[in-house]
């Protein structure tokens, strides 16, 4: 699953550390999410979308090829 976390975060001038703190996760988790190495749970995806004031669909792009990852 692809996502726009890095794009949205950079556009708003938010540091990875600050986003991690706001979401209650480690900075490494944010980095892994941005690099597409880790797919978040629906709970974390919801928290991320809510933090940016967007919907889950606006932040995460469902990719059928990566479904088995």
């Amino acid at each position, binding site marked *: 699953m692809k996502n726009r976390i890095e794009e949205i975060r950079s556009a708003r001038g938010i540091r990875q550390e600050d986003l991690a703190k706001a979401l*209650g*996760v*480690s900075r490494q988790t944010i980095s892994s999410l941005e690099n597409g190495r880790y797919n*978040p749970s629906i*709970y974390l995806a919801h928290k991320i979308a809510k933090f940016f004031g967007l919907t889950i669909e606006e932040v995460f792009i469902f990719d059928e090829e990566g479904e088995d990852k």
Partner: protein
Amino acid sequence: MKFEGKVILNIFWVILGAALMALSSFGAIDAAKWFSFGAALLFVGVLQGIKNIKYIKNEKYKEKVDTEINDERNKFISMKAWSWAGYLFVIISGVLTIVFMILGNNQYMMMSSYGVCLIILLYWISYLVLRRKS
């Protein structure tokens, strides 16, 4: 486990370690066997105690530990590591069983094959329990 539970367990290790060391020093139990075991328990207990005090007093450290514990990626990695460990254990035990069978060492062959059987049994029990829960 909650923090209070960890503290109680930690105190238990310290008391048990000190008791084993004392009993082995007075000759009540075999010193060769139990003194070092008691010392190890005491050491782990004290070390964990220092970490617990730091957790209570240092707000920044507490936040770091809490994030590490609650971080969902960390939990995922931990579960995956256990899964890999299980697979590796089965593979290594399986290979060892064959090696010991070829070498004609029946005792070790049986031990390693029992290891494979045990972990497969535990897997199925866990699977059935989790299937009911989920």
